[in-house]
């Protein structure tokens, strides 16, 4: 509650900007970066991660966002607990191999108005805040396929809300809220050969042709969001990238054919299939985001909504930890509980810590978005997605280590959990794309914000020589500049100091990377990977420090454990960041080590498998 007046300095300004950002007309005309530049908003106010990378800090970041009214917290807690309990009941009778969403689960979703939550109040929705939605999605996370099912409607709602015309909003949003319409996203990936294109005919209307694979719930969908290319100029080959909202009831002679439905290992509640579009009318009134506005819409799908995936995964992991803890507490080894075995505790500690970090990040970012303190969350979304991938992978280890053979035994809850995790990981964006998205966006912002000039463009040997000592000093003994520890509980002083040191060192490392590699950095996967890890750690450290400080100060239950976890995490994250940055400094140092990580993979691909001879092989 105290955070509200403390944040008042730029709150009004940022809220107004956020309101403008969410307004359809402004968004199309002015992206958030332009608005920020026009209003001289500092970069840390626009994007938190970019600010941290640029060694900029705002004390508001250390105030963990919270509800201003205790009644709101009670209401959303009651609601999400109710949804969770009802879902658990509905899932208990379900055959784990049955496909599609069951009637019981659907009735729980409809009875509780889950689809209403995403839609604004003026379009017959509930218009929940980001924090509310995070809580609801956490409840849905007890079953990941239910979350993925609901998330399709959410993405569709978001697209129409941001880029749709007023007619589209009033026509589709109320129906999406009441689940009268079921959406499917068809975002083409030309690199895999999937093409949906718009073909124009003289004297007639343009038609959409093509296909898209791996579409979720295409078999039950009523509306399709189809991203397609349209040739603008035959001579130059220039084309426009459009997003069409295709209503199945309005396609006339057109055909939408569903084929090759995949039988997946997990996420049985959804279907993944291939969709063919033939002769579908491509009308102007069906465009989302206007002509050539497909890129913005696609970016929105890619860079928004991962917070909800994160919160669902948090709900899933909490459920999993509870199951594993019950299993370990009920089992007996020797004269003690299985849970007292240190190996079991070690296996659970990774997942426990990961859940804590992921939960801290998503509620932190969700709260900041509610308060309008950050406007751009593209990097943060990619970071959350990468955390989700990492957390799910490590959860596998926990399950197998703790439950042993029970983890793979049919009929036990772990079986469904591991299958769902497996399928979700396969559907998620791969780590390399995320790493590129995180690191390259950050490097570009860093170069633009610091007005960096390479020594190749403007050589100044004397200045460079003089700066060598300064740079080394900054690296070895970074000076505290922001005194972050002044804004948190004294117990977290060391964690804050480590965070600040990492921020300073990242600045030095970025200077060297950009100076030495220039734009070639985009091909250097190892560098991007290391940079991404450091950025992720920075965000996670800020979120956990702010959360633990708040919890301990107000005396939440088990706040002492929370504090210990935050300190332990910050210690290991700072160590990891330091080692990654040292690797980068070495990599771009005098003796250049070619990172061999990618080369190993390249050799495997080149030789069609493991390329090294057996150690018993003789060559003479």
């Amino acid at each position, binding site marked *: 509650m105290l955070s509200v007046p403390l944040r008042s300095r730029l709150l009004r300004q940022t809220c107004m900007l956020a309101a403008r950002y969410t307004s359809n007309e402004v968004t199309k005309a002015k992206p958030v970066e332009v608005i920020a530049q026009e209003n001289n908003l500092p970069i840390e106010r626009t994007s938190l991660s970019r600010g941290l990378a640029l060694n900029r800090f705002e004390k508001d970041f250390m105030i963990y966002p919270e509800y201003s009214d205790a009644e709101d917290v009670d209401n959303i807690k009651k609601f999400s607990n109710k949804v969770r309990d009802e879902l658990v009941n509905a899932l208990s009778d379900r055959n784990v191999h049955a496909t599609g969403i069951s009637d019981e689960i659907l009735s729980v979703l409809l009875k509780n108005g889950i689809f209403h939550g995403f839609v604004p109040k003026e379009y017959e929705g509930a218009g929940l805040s980001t924090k509310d939605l995070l809580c609801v999605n956490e409840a849905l996370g007890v079953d990941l396929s239910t979350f993925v099912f609901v998330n399709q409607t959410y993405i569709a709602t978001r697209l129409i809300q941001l880029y749709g015309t007023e007619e589209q909003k009033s026509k589709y949003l109320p129906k999406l809220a009441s689940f009268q319409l079921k959406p499917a996203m068809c975002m083409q990936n030309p690199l895999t050969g999937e093409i949906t294109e718009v073909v124009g005919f003289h004297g007639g209307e343009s038609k959409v042709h093509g296909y898209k694979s791996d579409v979720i719930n295409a078999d039950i969908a009523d509306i399709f969001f189809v991203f397609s290319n349209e040739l603008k100029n035959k001579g130059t080959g220039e084309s426009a990238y459009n997003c069409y909202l295709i209503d199945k009831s309005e396609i006339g002679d057109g055909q939408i054919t569903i084929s090759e439905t995949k039988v997946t290992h997990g996420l049985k509640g959804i279907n993944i299939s291939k969709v063919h579009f033939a002769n579908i009318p491509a009308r102007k009134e069906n465009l989302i985001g206007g002509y050539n506005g497909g890129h913005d819409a696609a970016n929105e799908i890619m860079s928004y909504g991962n917070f909800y995936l994160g919160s669902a995964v948090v709900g899933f992991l909490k459920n999993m930890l509870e199951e594993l*803890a*019950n299993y370990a*507490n009920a089992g007996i080894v020797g004269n*003690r*509980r299985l849970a007292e075995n240190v190996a079991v505790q070690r296996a659970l500690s990774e997942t426990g810590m990961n859940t804590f970090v992921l939960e801290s990040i998503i509620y932190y970012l969700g709260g900041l978005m509610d308060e309008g303190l950050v406007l751009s969350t593209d990097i943060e979304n990619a970071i959350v997605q990468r955390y989700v991938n990492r957390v799910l992978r490590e959860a596998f280890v926990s399950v197998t280590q703790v439950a042993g053979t029970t983890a793979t035994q049919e009929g036990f809850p772990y079986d469904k959990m591991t299958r769902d995790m497996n399928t979700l990981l396969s559907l998620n964006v791969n780590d390399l794309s995320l790493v590129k998205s995180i690191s390259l966006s950050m490097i570009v912002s860093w170069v633009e914000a610091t007005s960096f000039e390479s020594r190749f463009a403007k050589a100044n040997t004397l200045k460079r020589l003089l700066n060598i000592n300064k740079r080394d000093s900054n690296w070895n003994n970074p000076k505290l500049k922001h005194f972050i520890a002044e804004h948190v509980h004294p117990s977290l002083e060391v964690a804050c100091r480590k965070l600040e040191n990492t921020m300073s060192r990242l600045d030095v490392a970025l200077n060297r990377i950009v100076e030495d590699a220039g734009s070639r950095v985009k091909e250097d996967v190892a560098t991007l990977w290391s940079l991404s890890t450091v950025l992720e750690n920075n965000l996670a450290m800020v979120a956990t420090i702010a959360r633990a400080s708040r919890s301990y100060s107000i*005396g*939440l239950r*088990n*706040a002492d454990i929370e504090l210990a976890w935050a300190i332990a995490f910050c210690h290991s994250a700072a160590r990891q960041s330091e080692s990654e940055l040292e690797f980068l400094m070495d990599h771009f140092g005098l003796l250049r080590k070619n990172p061999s990580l990618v080369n190993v993979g390249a050799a495997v691909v080149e030789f069609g498998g493991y390329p090294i001879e057996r150690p018993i092989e003789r060559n003479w």
Partner: protein
Amino acid sequence: MACPIHSIICVVLRRFQQHQEQEQTCLSPVPFEEVISAMLRQIWQGQSKSLQRLFPSCNAPLNRPMSSKDPQLLHIDEQFRKIPKEDRNKATFNTAIELFQHNRMRTRGHVEFLNTALKYLEEYNLHKDLDTYKSLLKVFPKGPLIPTNVFQKMFLHFPMQQQCCVKILDMMEWHGVQPDKEVHDIVANTFGEWNFATRKIKRMLYWMPKLRYSNKYLDRRMVENKNLDDKALAKVALKMMCRDPGTTFTLVKTPSDDAEAENSWVVSAQAPLQKKLITDLAPESTIYVDGPNVVYLLEKPIKYFVLSSDPFNTNFDEFIEQRDIYDMKDFRGKVFSDRTDLTERNLHQQSDKTILAMAVFEYQTESMAVRWLDHLSEMNPKLNDMSVLFRVKKDGISVAEEFSEEEEEEPAKESQAI
């Protein structure tokens, strides 16, 4: 010369002895408090002139008529007292507050009203209700009690009002009612930002949440402001006491002793480790059912029973000589020995006894204990082969009676053992 205080204490003790004797023979229906107060008044007025000389400041209050006879206070008292007991609830209490605020034509009488209202909080069962405390604090006028100059700030400005406010806040603290920021704002708007009463609420707002979970084994949210029935309370109490996280809780319904009454219940708690310990017991060993013991769940007393056995023959000495740790002789043997933490005694194996199960009964009788044991025998068949000694305490037995009963009932107790 005898000390006057000493003489008063002697007289009081003598009268107490007399009263006890009269009570036993049912000759004195008058409560002891009234006897003592009448006696003190008599002593004060008639006999102890020297004491009055020693403490002249005490003269006035004691000589004044009792507060309940004050016509003004009597009127306030009546507002709460005249409401029948069955209608004493939040609505009627709030109506009394509203009536006071509505009828108030002058800026006086808040302290008297609030002091009286505080007395009736528990009777109206509102001593745990935050909203009622807020309503009471809102009775103070906003503005006139705030100090305006440095002298007023230095000294206790409007001391009676501030003391009254502190008294309300003390009562909140005593009953464990967590204040929120609104309470702070109400007090700060009444007495100013840094007055004595405001400091009190600031400290409460700082410390009470910090100490809220000082008992880490109890989640207060499970009990506070929840109208839990006895079965639910029993489960929470057992969960608080049973430190084994693997403990399972079962609700057993058994036929009641009273044929007309419905089934009675037992909430039983037993962990898998405790089941294992029962199987490890020697056949025909003796186990004990002890109780009822009392545990407090916040302010609610819960009576529980414990099933236990004699301590296992294990080493309870946990002291390890440091020189043994760093002694490198037979290092391999120590490092790779079969004896690990997992083979050591577990938390149920205490030095005085081994706890095998715990339970809360609806009625604390031996027959209920027998039914509980029947239920446990279903999951622990080995219990059927064991001798059980029921050590069920009875309420309201004086020391003298207990001695006499023990002597008489000793053979009967043995016959209860199964």
